[in-house]
């Protein structure tokens, strides 16, 4: 692959495990997951609690908390495997080529340092600026993320800020790093809807301006629909569907994705969601290149006699987790 076409981030066959409390064996929370994020692309990683979406995101910056560990796979940032890097190389990546913002901005900030010092430190340490210049750059950056009184905020401590303001500060710190890839893990969860709108407006504005790639982790399909170009859907540690955003909403294939999309309540229309009409979402049989596959929800695998699941491409850029079925007549039953 040439450098131009190489994806910025490529996650290949990633598995992450946590030791079982009883016998210490590794229990996988992410299993055999692969997807890419291209330059200047906004990709949504959607799933419910326990889907493994946050663990996947954390592993990209090697932030998996012990005793959890990556069991298998590669995480390539512009071709370099993050999992093989030494500490010096890793430091080059974190907060430089790739940055992350979290769900609870206030707990991600150092409670004992003023905002000005926390943002300024990025300029002095990572950019080698002098203290005076770093101070000026900090105020400029706070202004850029829409903070009206930057000097006042710079002199504040995290506990003195509202949740929305703290997230703006986190975004300012991220921007100061000028990363190629931003990972945002539920960046507006817990914020009011009008503040959420402000934060996403800011993130989108910055993305369009800097062309950084954005991996957005969320449980909110409304946010996905408004912000993302492509979507990766996870269920119980597995990627079950990858699709362009329009396809995902208009023509979801995997039973789990259909259930998610079928559970959507719309604020703008009075429509009864499919899931509320008592519909269930049975396994689907897919015909791909003459072969037959069955897409089964991960939680119902145990009750179905299945082969080894794999991602099957049902249309260009649209992949679904399914397993091959040999005898069509039996599989459909």
């Amino acid at each position: 692959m040439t450098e131009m076409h190489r994806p910025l981030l490529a996650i290949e066959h990633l598995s992450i495990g946590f030791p079982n409390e009883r016998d210490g064996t590794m229990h996988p929370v992410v299993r055999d997951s692969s997807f890419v994020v291209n330059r200047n692309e906004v990709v949504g990683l959607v799933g419910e609690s326990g889907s493994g979406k946050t663990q996947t995101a954390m592993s990209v910056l090697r932030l998996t908390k012990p005793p959890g560990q990556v069991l298998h796979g590669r995480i390539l940032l512009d071709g370099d495997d993050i999992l093989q890097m030494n500490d010096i190389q890793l430091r080059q990546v974190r907060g430089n080529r790739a940055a992350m913002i979290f769900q609870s901005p206030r707990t991600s900030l150092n409670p004992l340092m003023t905002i000005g010092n926390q943002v300024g430190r990025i300029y002095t340490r990572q950019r080698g600026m002098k203290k005076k210049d770093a101070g000026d750059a900090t105020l400029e950056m706070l202004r850029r993320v829409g903070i009206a009184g930057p000097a006042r905020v710079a002199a504040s401590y995290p506990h003195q800020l509202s949740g929305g303001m703290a997230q703006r500060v986190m975004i300012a710190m991220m921007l100061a790093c000028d990363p190629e890839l931003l990972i945002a893990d539920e960046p507006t969860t817990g914020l009011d809807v009008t503040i959420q709108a402000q934060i996403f407006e800011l993130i989108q504005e910055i993305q369009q301006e800097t062309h950084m790639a954005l991996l957005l982790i969320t449980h909110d399909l409304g946010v996905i629909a408004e912000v993302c170009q492509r979507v990766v859907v996870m269920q119980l540690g597995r990627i079950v569907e990858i699709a362009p955003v329009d396809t995902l909403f208009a023509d979801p294939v995997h039973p789990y994705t259909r259930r998610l999309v079928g559970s959507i309540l719309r604020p703008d229309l009075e429509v009864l969601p499919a899931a509320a009409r008592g519909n269930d979402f049975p396994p689907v049989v897919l015909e791909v290149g003459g072969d037959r596959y069955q897409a089964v929800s991960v939680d119902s695998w145990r009750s179905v006699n299945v082969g080894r699941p794999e991602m099957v491409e049902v249309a260009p850029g649209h992949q679904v987790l399914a397993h091959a079925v040999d005898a069509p007549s039996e599989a459909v039953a």
Partner: protein
Amino acid sequence: MSAEPILAVDNLEQRFKTPGGLVYAVNGVTFQVAAGESVGLVGESGSGKSTIAKSIVRLGEPTGGSIVYRGQDITHLGDNQMRSLRSKLQMVFQDPTLSLNPRLSVRQTLSEPLRLHKIANGKADLDAHLNRLMDLVNLERNLLDRRPGQLSGGQRQRVGIARAIATEPDFIVLDEPTSSLDMSIRISIIELLRNLQQEMGLAYLFISHDLSTVRYLCSRVIVLYLGTIVEEGTVEEIFSAPKHPYTQALLSAVPIPDPALRSSRNRIVLPGETPHLTHPIVGCPLADRCPYVEPSHREGRIPMVSVGPGDHRVACLLYQDGSGAGATAPDASEAA
């Protein structure tokens, strides 16, 4: 609303003493709920919606105004007097993990109100009631002997709902009952609440920041900002033709789960954030953030005016002439 309301809240006020001084959480809120009606109380943090909910079920004592339930003033009832009313006036809480006793089995949790309010007499009757409750909330009867820790989040909230309906209430305050649940679980709980309302003729006061759920579950909506009502109307009126600049901004901020509509969205972003109210409201509570504010809006008390044929009313001086189409009034269709 034709018949006498089941609940009438009149000029409710709630102030809290905090280390930072007095906080004005609820500032003269007046509304009614009719029997069998489902009313949504929406607003963001600091709107006072949870404080109002707590006042109604007497988990907090208001500092002013009155709450009348079925003609009886319950504003300052003592615990003993309130106990008999609690069977009729129930509440479902946001987080079933916190509101259920982790050491009690489902059977114990549900038996308590049935015995306390003398609804079930004798073991056979109790079992019959328990089975019926489990059926009503679509839980397998064999879950009766589980504890909350052995149930999923959705199952726990079903137990919370079963506990609320055990005493055959006619009014339930629902305080964000689905906000701690996953999407695919949420819809089934909302559907359950809808069915129960129809089967049992329940009236709901549904407290939520999730406007999509309100649209689905409620027939009428009250919009709060800084402890005051800024707009009220039917679901159709509020969602299709919001009048108050705050309602318009709030609705336009909700992400629409339809990528096809992305480019056609017209988002109204209010500058700033909801302030903490440490002084009494004078004039319009939104004045500091409203794009249409004029000096005269910062004085006196803003009255609710009618802006539609029904009960669609708004507290905004832009609609003061009564027509709902004042020269400077924002065009609601833009916000939708």
